[in-house]
């Protein structure tokens, strides 16, 4: 059996450090021992393959049971590619978010803001053959959190992607352009590289915007690519 190709290591500065003291919860939750260096094997190079038949898509979060959720309806569209700019086809994307008032439909969220019976905040879409995905939702609100005095999270939508293998797993957050809270957000700033942070911010897109209906935002995601040649580690 041929050895699997290795997935590329992260470009310096483009991924957060799990030890990021400005984000307080990392304090007791980051390992202090170095990670065990390990070249990818079949365990890391393969991964789950999800199908819409077993994981039913949820492409419109802006209504529930035929009733409209409160807030500003938006369309989010984008493309998932790998680092070699190849489309990642038929891959599952999970999204979740707070409602327009800045509250999650979650028992742990006790923020004094309205819950919306018509907004659950869970979505699930699959990319097409060329890597494109799209869903409709409500623009999430900002909300306070306990990290430091007067701390507020910028508007964001959580993303979960799988890609080709266990090694390409990605959990991230999509932000919105022009949000004044981005400059103040410790989680956003755990990514050292400014250009890498900028890529977490969606772009307003008039071509995605549907006249008389909803604004459109573009958010592309890049999953790790493979090194061109096998390399023993």
């Amino acid at each position: 059996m041929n050895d699997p190709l290795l997935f590329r290591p992260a470009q310096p500065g483009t991924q957060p450090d799990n030890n990021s003291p400005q984000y307080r919860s990392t304090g007791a939750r980051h390992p202090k021992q170095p990670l065990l260096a390990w070249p990818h094997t079949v365990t890391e190079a393969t991964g789950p393959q999800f199908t819409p038949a077993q994981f039913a898509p949820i492409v419109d979060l802006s209504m529930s049971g035929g009733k409209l959720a409160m807030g500003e309806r938006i369309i989010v569209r984008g493309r998932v590619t790998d680092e070699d700019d190849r489309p990642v086809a038929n891959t599952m994307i999970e999204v979740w978010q707070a409602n327009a008032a800045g509250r999650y439909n979650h028992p742990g969220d006790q923020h004094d803001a309205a819950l919306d019976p018509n907004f659950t905040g869970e979505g699930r879409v699959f990319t097409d053959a060329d890597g494109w995905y799209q869903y409709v939702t409500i623009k999430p609100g900002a909300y306070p959190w306990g990290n430091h005095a007067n701390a507020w999270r910028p508007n964001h939508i959580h993303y979960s992607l799988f890609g080709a293998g266990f090694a390409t797993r990605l959990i991230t957050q999509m932000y919105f352009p022009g949000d004044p809270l981005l400059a103040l957000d410790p989680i956003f700033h755990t990514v050292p590289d400014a250009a890498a942070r900028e890529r977490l911010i969606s772009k307003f897109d008039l071509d995605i915007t549907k006249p008389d209906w909803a604004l459109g935002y573009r958010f592309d995601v890049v999953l790790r690519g493979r090194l061109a040649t096998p390399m023993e580690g």
Partner: protein
Amino acid sequence: MSVATAFQTIGPYWHLIEHPEEADLTRFGATGEALTLVGRIIDGARAPVADACVELWQASPEAGPHFPGWGRARTDANGEYRFTTVKPGPVPGRGNTLQAPHFALNLFARGVLTRLYTRAYFQGEALNATDPLLNLVDDPQRRASLIAKPEGAAVWRMDIVLQGEGETVFIEV
């Protein structure tokens, strides 16, 4: 060439995408030696990690219509997670090597910005002695952190320590 998108934490509200049946990898009718994998996750202050998302991937048996190979479980208020699955077999390593049966575990949580990757091997498995990953870990206590212990019939326990004394070995991926 493009650069891979940065991770951000899964946060405390990821349960909006949780579907508890996903912790049962046998739900589509998998056949094999059924087992339960349980474990408790604690942090550097020895407090239970009660809001974690644990994902399991096993390359063996091969995933198919009756076996997804992947599962997701939450930790409860005591930091405990639980999967129902079937026992994996050995899989090839790099070069001419063989890896002992193991689960790959990804751990996401509030306060974890990327993901923490570890493996659960099986105590008493003969192939452990020649497993290429286990043999990279010299310290016996560290090595033991990668090995699930039997806890009654067909139940295996894999506790995870994020930081400090008894810290689990986490693996680069």
